């Protein structure tokens, strides 16, 4: 186990800069998730950590050691790949013990470590099989087994669950998290799935276009997004973003509807801004604003309703089951204390100082 520190990290492919100066500090034993849309540089960043890509500029430290110029094998890391990358010509046990064999460890020393890892992951019965004889979930587990056998300083995961079906993904998600809680190894995990990020991370790094948009705990990101991108990326369904103007402590949409605000800074008055409201922060209320229902999606535990607030389409999530039909008018009220305000030009959150 070791802390990881990334400073001013850049990656250029020719004239194209894909990672544009990134600083992240990862504490010892922390589970950090890098999340962002495809092409945001998260996988490149992970590969630079692994030593599979050169570093154009900046510095990476694992523990106290600068690893910029170390080859992957000398970084004391283990990586789990999206397509598992199991060696097809080796049995499960040999796949898992390969790194130890390369360290010239004796067979007698390798076997117990492989067995222990196999026990943790429930692979005991599969040790004599070849990867092609395993299901997707089993392969994924072998790939993780290969990583934990080595007891490395840092685990790197590159979208490890995206090849699994939805149900298995949820199960493996919990398994990886439980594994981390057991082993407490520093982990960097890349995904494009914000739900994976929210459910697994101690700390999330949201990236876009090669820069970090925000770093924080899952709930910090959810409750206090630093900008419109993070606000829209984290949370499902997405936060409603409504354009308008701040006027006298309230918000007037371009459609002329007045939405309540609480604690908007005085300086914001008169500014063109974006009003952000999470779908679950709309309440059904008799003195709410009239909205015309367009689509109703019952999920069982909650009901998603798409409606037009004046001319602005919004998505609401209600815990209660409602009987509205498309074309009906419902009355909804946003919670003023849960509302977000963003600058219309920069997209940055406007907060009281």
């Amino acid at each position, binding site marked *: 186990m070791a802390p990881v520190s990334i400073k001013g990290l850049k990656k250029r492919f020719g004239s194209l800069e894909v990672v544009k100066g990134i600083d992240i500090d990862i504490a010892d034993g922390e589970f950090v998730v890098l999340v962002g849309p495809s092409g945001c540089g998260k996988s490149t960043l992970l590969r630079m950590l*692994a*030593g*599979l890509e050169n570093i154009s500029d900046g510095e990476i430290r694992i523990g106290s050691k600068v690893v910029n110029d170390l*080859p*992957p*094998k000398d970084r004391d*890391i*283990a*990586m789990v*790949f*999206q*397509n598992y*990358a*199991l*060696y*097809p*010509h080796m049995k499960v046990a040999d796949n898992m013990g*390969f*790194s130890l064999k*390369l*360290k010239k460890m004796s067979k007698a020393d390798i076997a117990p470590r492989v067995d222990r890892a196999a026990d943790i992951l429930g692979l005991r019965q599969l040790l004599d099989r070849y990867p092609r004889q395993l299901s997707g979930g089993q392969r994924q587990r072998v790939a993780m087994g*290969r990583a934990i056998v*080595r007891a490395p300083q840092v685990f790197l995961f590159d979208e490890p669950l995206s090849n699994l079906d939805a149900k298995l993904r949820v199960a493996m998600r919990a398994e990886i998290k439980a594994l981390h809680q057991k082993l407490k190894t520093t982990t960097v995990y890349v995904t494009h799935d914000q739900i994976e990020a929210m459910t697994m991370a101690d700390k999330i790094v949201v990236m876009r276009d090669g820069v970090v948009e925000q770093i924080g705990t899952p709930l910090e990101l959810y409750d206090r997004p630093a900008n419109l991108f993070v606000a829209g990326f984290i949370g499902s369904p997405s936060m409603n973003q409504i354009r308008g103007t701040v006027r006298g402590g309230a918000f007037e949409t371009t459609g002329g509807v007045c939405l309540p605000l609480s604690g908007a800074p005085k300086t914001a008055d008169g500014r063109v801004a974006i009003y952000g409201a999470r779908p679950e922060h709309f309440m059904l209320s008799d003195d709410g604003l009239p909205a015309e229902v367009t689509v109703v999606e019952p999920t069982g535990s909650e009901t998603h309703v798409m409606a037009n607030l004046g001319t602005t389409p919004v998505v609401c999530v209600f815990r209660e089951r409602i009987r509205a039909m498309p074309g009906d008018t419902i009355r909804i009220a946003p919670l003023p204390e849960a509302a977000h305000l963003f600058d219309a030009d920069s997209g940055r959150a406007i907060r009281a100082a």
Partner: protein
Amino acid sequence: MNSSARTLLARTGQYALALLLAVYSAFPIYYMIICSFREPAVFYTSRALLPTSFTLEYYRTLIRRTDFLLQFWNSIIVASATVIVTLVVSITMAYAISRFKIRGKKAIIGTMLYAYMFPPLLLAIPLTSIFAVLNLVDTLPSLVVAHFTMTLPLAVWFLWGFLKAMPFELEEAAMVDGCSRLGAFVRVILPLSLPGLATVAIFSFLLSWTDYTFGLVLLSSDGSKTLPVGLASLLAGIDMRWGEVMAGATLIVIPLFLMFAFCSRYFVAGMAAGAVKG
């Protein structure tokens, strides 16, 4: 007609067709072997399809009175050298082309295919004059080089398709696990390339072992001739020694049979992999 009877009929048809094709290709080989054991007295008169008499006379003559054994040895040396050189050079080239950013990569691959389309005879003449300048004419290495010019393009092309289909992550995983790049190549890529390498080995061997054109042009002395050229010279004399030719041809086939018997499993896998993934 019910469906199981129809399946049976279709099966029978398939087997009949397969048998017909097998007989069509195997019959000349069968007849060659029969003839190599037929006694001289009836050699030119018998038309029997089954063995009627048995003699080892042609084999004895061939081995005692001609350079057959020496030429067999020459062929073995040339073919083995061609296979080894082809394997080593083509796998390293194919690996480099498939894994590294190389300027003019497309051109290299394109030229490879173009070179393969060249008729061998067209290459034989310029190659001979080059070897003449280098003082290499009538030596076995010159023949290896000539065969190599034919085997390399196809081998690189084939292995390139093979390696391209192999996920990069396998090597990266090996490198994270503690291999150097060379280590990952040797421990992961090479074992997984075995079907491809076996395929390349078979066709290089086949090409070199059966080559007549280059052998004829490049080799002149009896002692340095390879089998196909040596055997053909038996027919060029005043008397046509068909019996010895049949015996010699039968012996030529043996290494090919052995090679296919050992490698056919890999060969088929290699062909399939190259065809589907490449």
